[in-house]
């Protein structure tokens, strides 16, 4: 049978980062083909290549027998490729029928809108996806799964032959999941090819015919789902050995610095967290994107205050409602989004480094430039920040050096607890191991470190203990020597209880 879509040896780099290093993939008519991989394995980039959002540097795409170097989004749509994203891209202020009409009908800007026709079309498509949604409802009023159904209706209506679903169940309830599965099976029965991306192994077993596993931007194999066990799938995803490149731990951890008791925050979906971090200890925090790790960090830093449970720091129960308060209690947070939250790119690195210690460094609020420059020089030397001087704007530094500036800012506060969120994301290999050494040295000096990371080897290599989060809570605390399979299994919630 002629495949609907065939990708061969697709390569794509962003600057020095090689996101796809030769991915091959094919999709048959009437097939649900799952794409599986860790965070950052290249799934999103691959989807963007298929939908025409990115053009590949190398390799060929064959859509319905037609070979192409690359696609544009509109060309992809003409070829019958539709993508349903996790976050539906509908116009919130327009009605469902208007959204569907806009998506499906190509008319000139001044053509008269045929409301009745539009409405009838919408009604028909919504019925086909089994959605009980009024075509006149404003999209703003719809829930996330309802919006996804509207997206699927659009895909149906456009006569798409290739439908890509990016974690479609992430925000769905059980009942809605079943509904969605039914729609996917209908699509398959009608000869549509579905590319299905999900972290939930049980869904892949329930829905998919074949699975392709991506790891570090490469496809490591395509297998019929019925030939694989869950354990084998995890093995494929994790694959590599953890290199012994990480600085070793030394000595026993000291007293408990941070203790969380049944901590939760309903606004950010974090619940029932029990966790301890000791002085001199690095606790790695693993889990999938969206498992609630950054949300937990934001609670501990006072950005989204907790509404249940307790935060105890050095034996004292705290209520944290602002970063300022958290800082004064000795909590430091190196945020995930370095460019938005970690470093102010336009400001000199000296200003960035001293930003969290204004009250200490500048008593009486008058700036002391000498003290500021001296502090900046110390950190530039101690952390090996490569910059032409304390006056260099943050934006002129490489990612790794920006991260060191961000870490410096928090070390300047002399914290008791240091929370690092994806400390080496987007950092080149050299700077990465330097940052690892810095983190280990800080722990040796007695700092309690909570390190959130989606980089599994990093978590395994750096952590004295590993806490795994899934769906807003800590599901496992594993010893530092745990292997990748255990961590992945806990992150994926491979208990089998929630299988649809």
């Amino acid at each position, binding site marked *: 049978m002629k495949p609907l879509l065939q990708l061969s040896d697709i390569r794509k780099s962003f600057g020095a980062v090689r996101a796809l290093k030769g991915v091959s993939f094919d999709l048959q008519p009437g097939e649900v083909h799952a794409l599986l991989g860790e965070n950052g394995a290249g799934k999103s980039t691959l989807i963007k290549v298929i939908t025409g959002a990115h053009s590949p540097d190398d390799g060929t795409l064959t859509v319905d027998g037609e070979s192409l170097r690359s696609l544009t989004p509109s060309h992809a749509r003409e070829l019958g490729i539709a993508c349903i994203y996790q976050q539906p891209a509908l116009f919130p202020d327009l009605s469902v029928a208007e959204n569907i009409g806009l998506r499906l009908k190509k008319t000139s800007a001044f053509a008269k809108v045929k409301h009745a026709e539009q409405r009838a079309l919408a009604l028909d498509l919504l019925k086909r996806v089994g959605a009980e949604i009024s075509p006149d409802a404003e999209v703003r009023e719809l829930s996330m799964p309802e919006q996804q159904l509207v997206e699927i209706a659009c895909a149906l209506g456009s006569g798409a032959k290739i439908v890509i679903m990016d974690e479609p169940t992430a925000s769905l309830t059980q009942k809605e999941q079943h509904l969605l599965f039914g729609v996917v099976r209908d699509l398959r029965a009608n000869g549509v090819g579905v590319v299905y991306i999900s972290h939930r192994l049980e869904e892949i077993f329930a829905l998919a015919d074949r699975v392709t596993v991506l790891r570090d931007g490469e496809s490591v194999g395509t297998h019929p789902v019925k030939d694989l066990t869950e354990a084998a799938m995890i093995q494929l995803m994790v694959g590599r050995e953890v290199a012994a490149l990480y600085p070793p731990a030394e000595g026993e951890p000291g007293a408990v610095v941070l203790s969380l008791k049944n901590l939760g925050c309903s606004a950010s979906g974090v619940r029932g967290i029990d966790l301890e971090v000791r002085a001199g200890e690095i606790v790695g925090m693993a889990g999938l994107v969206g498992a609630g790790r950054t949300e937990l960090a934001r609670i501990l830093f006072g950005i989204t205050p907790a509404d249940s449970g307790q935060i105890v720091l050095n034996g004292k129960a705290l209520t944290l409602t602002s970063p300022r308060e958290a800082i004064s209690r000795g909590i430091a947070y190196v945020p995930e989004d370095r460019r938005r939250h970690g470093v*102010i790119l336009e400001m000199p690195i000296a200003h960035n480094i001293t930003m969290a210690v204004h009250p200490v460094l500048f008593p009486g609020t008058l700036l002391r430039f000498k003290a500021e420059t001296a502090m900046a020089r110390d950190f530039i030397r101690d952390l090996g920040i490569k910059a032409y001087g304390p006056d260099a704007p943050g934006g002129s530094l490489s990612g790794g050096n920006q991260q060191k500036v961000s870490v410096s800012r928090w070390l300047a506060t002399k914290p008791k607890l240091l929370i690092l969120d994806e400390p080496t994301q987007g950092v080149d290999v050299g700077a990465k191991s330097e940052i690892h050494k810095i983190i280990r040295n800080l722990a040796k000096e007695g700092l309690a470190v909570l390190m959130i990371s989606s980089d599994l080897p990093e978590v395994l290599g750096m952590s004295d203990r590993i806490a795994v989060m899934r769906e807003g809570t800590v599901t496992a605390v594993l010893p530092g020597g745990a292997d990748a399979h255990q961590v992945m299994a806990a992150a994926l919630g491979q208990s089998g209880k929630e299988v649809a």
Partner: protein
Amino acid sequence: MSTCCRYGVDETSTLLNAVMTAAKPSLKSLLARHEVVLLIVIALEILLFQSLGRRFLDGTNVSNIFRHSVEIGLLALAMTPVILTGGIDLSVGSMMGLCAVCFGIFVNEAAMSPLLAALLAVGIGTLGGGLNALLIARFQLPPLIVTLGTFSLFRGLAEALTKGSKSYSGFPDSFLALGNSDIAGVPAQIWIFLLVALGIWLLVHRMTIGRSFRAIGYSPEGARYAGIPVRRNLGLAYILAGAIAGLAAVILVARLGEARANAGIGYELLAITAVVLGGTSIFGGSGSVGGTLLGYLAVAVLNNGLSRITAYQLFDQPISSVARELSGMLTGLLLLLALAVTPLAKALAARRTKT
């Protein structure tokens, strides 16, 4: 190094390289400095008016340039921290109207001493600024919309208090001296202006709060993550702007000898013009009080010069009738030109280093 608008990382670094690799400052790199452009503009203005009119640079007129524009200078100073945070305050001109009217009522109808009335007027300005601060910093509403609202609200209150037409005068000479006398050969109100300028300079360039204004302007979220009390400091910028508008109102009444609801109409726009002309980025973050002072000077000299050439003729046509329109038009042109020169020079400098 101050830049007049937000540059991406790459642009900043190429610019930086351009500046660092240039062996000696070329004309283009000199033009890339906003302050230099402004100084040239001011010099050209002075040359033009000196050649058109007589005694433009004599002592009395130089005094007048400042005496007649000091309120705009005060508003420009007040506006600088606000714009540094990435905000804007359109209500300061209307605030002057409200404070002027209140001052008039306090002195004329409540028989207060001018000093007490002036303090109360500044207090009312502070309260009005506090309303802006509450809406912008506490409730996170957009500054443009909030101050557009209070722009109408404050002026409307002033008009309601005077029933649209009433004005207050008959203030004691000791008070009027504030607007019309000299101290050590310099107009009395200029001393107040210089004090305020010094204060704002300290605030912006020498205190942690000034640093936090910039951080908020560049990245409010980034500032919050660094533990900066974003709401409090943002609010303070607007409260301060209100207080200074109150002070400017008192000085205006002292100069004119009259308090009316229309005091300070349009001043907010001239103040914003001066600040932006001075190189402060309207997106927030970068800018300086020195730049604001130069921007104010450029606006003040232009307005004074134009008001003087009304008595003369240009191209054999009497131009007195068009002087007012000319003033607005030229202020606008000046702003646009001054804004265009710096990016143009930078683009040229960047292109040269590439080839």
